[in-house]
C-alpha cells in the first residue's frame, strides 16, 4: 500500500519535471539555433552566387562557389595581408600588455612604496575614460609622429590596459607566497630576478586568461583601426572587411565569403579552447 503511494508520488514528480524540462530544453535549443543560424547562413551565402540571397523561398543549403567567391574577395582586398597585419598587431600588443601588466601587478601586490594606493586607484579610474574622448588628439598625435597608416600607430593605443594590471595584481597577491619572495631576497636575488624566475612561472596560467582578453579585444576593435588606417596596403582584417561593403553594388556571395574566411580561424581556436575563453570572460568580470 505505502509502496504504491510512494511510487505514485515519485511518478507524478517525474512527470512534472519532464513537462517543465521539455520547455527548458526547447527554450535552450531555440537559443542555440538562433545563436548558430547567422553563422550557418553566412556559410551558405559564401558558397552561392550573389543573386541567391534574394531567391524565394530562401536557399538554405550550401552551393559550390566556396572557392570562386573567395577568389573575388582576393580581387577586392588584400585578404591575407590584412589578416597578417591583424595577427602582428594582436600578438605584439598582447606580449607588451602581458609584460607591462605583470610587472606593475607584481609591484602593486608585493612592494611597499609611497603613493601606492593612490596610483592604483588612478589606474582603475583610467578605465572610466571613454576611448573616443581623446580620439582627435590621438589621431593628431599619431599623424604628427608620422605613424598614420602604420601598424605601430595602431598598436600604441592598445598598450594601455588598466584591466590587465588589476587582474595581475590580484593573481600575484593570491598565487605568489610572500615567504618565497623573502627567502629569495635573503639569497641575494635582485627584484627583477625574482620577477623573472619566481613570479613569472607562477603566473603563467593568468597570462593565458589575460592574453585571450587582450588578443580578442584588439582583433575585433574597429573605431581606432578605421581612423588610423587609410591605405588599403595597411588595412587590418576588420577595416578590409568593412571596405567590402562600401561599393554601391555589393556582391553578397563575395562579401559573406570574406567574412566567412575571416571568422573561421577564430571559431576553430574558440572551439578548441572554449573553456579557457569562457573562463577569461568570467575572470575578467568577477574579479
Amino acid at each position: 500500500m505505502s509502496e504504491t503511494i510512494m511510487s505514485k508520488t515519485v511518478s507524478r514528480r517525474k512527470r512534472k519535471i519532464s513537462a517543465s524540462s521539455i520547455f527548458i530544453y526547447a527554450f535552450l535549443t531555440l537559443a542555440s539555433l538562433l545563436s548558430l543560424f547567422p553563422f550557418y547562413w553566412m556559410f551558405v551565402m559564401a558558397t552561392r552566387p550573389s543573386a541567391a540571397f534574394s531567391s524565394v523561398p530562401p536557399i538554405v543549403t550550401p552551393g559550390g562557389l566556396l572557392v570562386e567567391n573567395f577568389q573575388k574577395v582576393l580581387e577586392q582586398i588584400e585578404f591575407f595581408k590584412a589578416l597578417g597585419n591583424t595577427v602582428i598587431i594582436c600578438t605584439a600588443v598582447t606580449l607588451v600588455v602581458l609584460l607591462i601588466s605583470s610587472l606593475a601587478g607584481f609591484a602593486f601586490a608585493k612592494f611597499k612604496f609611497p603613493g601606492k594606493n593612490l596610483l592604483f586607484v588612478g589606474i582603475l579610474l583610467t578605465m572610466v575614460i571613454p576611448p573616443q574622448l581623446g580620439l582627435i588628439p590621438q589621431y593628431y598625435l599619431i599623424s604628427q609622429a608620422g605613424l598614420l597608416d602604420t601598424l605601430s600607430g595602431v598598436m600604441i593605443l592598445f598598450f594601455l590596459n588598466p584591466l590587465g594590471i588589476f587582474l595581475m595584481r590580484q593573481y600575484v597577491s593570491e598565487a605568489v607566497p610572500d615567504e618565497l619572495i623573502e627567502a629569495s631576497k635573503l639569497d641575494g636575488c635582485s627584484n627583477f630576478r625574482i620577477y623573472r624566475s619566481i613570479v613569472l612561472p607562477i603566473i603563467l596560467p593568468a597570462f593565458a586568461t589575460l592574453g585571450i582578453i587582450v588578443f580578442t579585444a584588439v582583433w575585433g576593435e574597429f573605431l581606432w583601426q578605421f581612423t588610423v588606417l587609410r591605405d588599403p596596403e595597411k588595412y587590418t582584417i576588420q577595416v578590409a572587411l568593412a571596405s567590402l561593403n562600401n561599393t554601391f553594388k555589393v556582391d553578397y556571395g563575395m562579401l559573406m565569403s570574406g567574412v566567412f574566411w575571416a571568422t573561421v580561424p577564430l571559431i576553430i581556436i574558440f572551439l578548441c579552447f572554449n573553456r579557457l575563453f569562457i573562463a577569461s570572460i568570467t575572470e575578467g568580470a568577477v574579479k
Partner: protein
Amino acid sequence: MIVSKKRFVSEEKKDMISAYLYVSPFFIIFSLVGLYPAVYSLYLAFQKWDGLAPMTFVGLDNFRVVLEDPLFWKSLYNTLIIGVMGTAPQLIVGIILAFLLNLAYLKLKQFFRVTIFMPYITSMVAVALIFSVIFSNHEASLANYTLSVFGFDPVNWKTSEWGTKIAISLMVFWRWVGYNTIIYLAGLQSISNEYYEAATIDGASKMQQLLHITLPLLRPFILLTVFFSTVGALQLFAEPTVFLGNNAFTRDEAMTVVMYLYRDAFRLQSFGTASATAIILLIFIVIASAINLLLTSRIGKKRGVRSE
C-alpha cells in the same frame, strides 16, 4: 649593528625604486596616449580648428553649435533608442538563460553554453556584415521573407527610421546576450548551495528563494553588466557604420553620437565641434551610468524588503 641598519634602509629603497620602475611603463604610456589627448580634447573644444590652419579661441561656441544642431539631438535620440532596445532585453534574456544553464540536472550543458557564447567571439564588423545581408532592403531578403511568411509588408532595413534601429538593436542583442549569460552564470555559481539548503529546510518556496537569495546575491553581477552595457551602448559605432556601408555618414536614421563625432572630425574637418561632442558624450555617459546603476541597485533592494 650600524651596517645592518644601513643595509636594511637601502633594501627598502631598492624595493621602492624597483616598484616605481615596474609601474612606470603604464603611466608613461597613459600620459602620452591617454591623459594628454583627453586634456587636449578639453582644450580643442574651445577652439575652431580644421587640422591645418592655426586655431582660434571661440569660447563656448562649439558647444552652442553642437547643442543647436538638430542632427546632434537626432544622433543622441538614435543612440538611446538603439541602446535601450539592444541592451535591456539582452540583460533579461541573459538572466533567464543563465538560470536555466545553472540547473543541476540539465544535460548538454557545455553544448548550450558554447553555442550561446559563440556570437561574442565574432567581431562587430563581421556581425554587422552578416546582418547587412540578412536585413537587406530587398523584398526577398531573409528578414523580409520571414516577415512575408507572417503576412507583414517588407521593411526598408537600411533606410527607414525604425527598420535600421531594429536591425542594429538585433545585432547588438545577438552578439552580447551570450556574454552576459556567462557573467550571470558565474554569478549564480558563486552562490553557495548551503543558502538554498538552509532555505529549503526553513520551508521557503522556490520563488522566495529566487527573491531572497538569488537576486540579492546576483546584484553585483547585474550592476556590472548594466554598467558595461550602458557605456557600450552610448559608444556604439562599428555596427551602424559597417551595416550602412556607403550611407553611414550621409543618412540620419541610425547615426549615433560617436558617428556624429567621427563625421565632424574626419569628414567635415571640424575638430573643435567634434571635441565638444566628445565632452558632451562623456557627460551623458557619466549621467546615464549613474542613473542606471542607481535604478538597478534600488530595484534589487526594494524587492528584498517588500517581500519580507
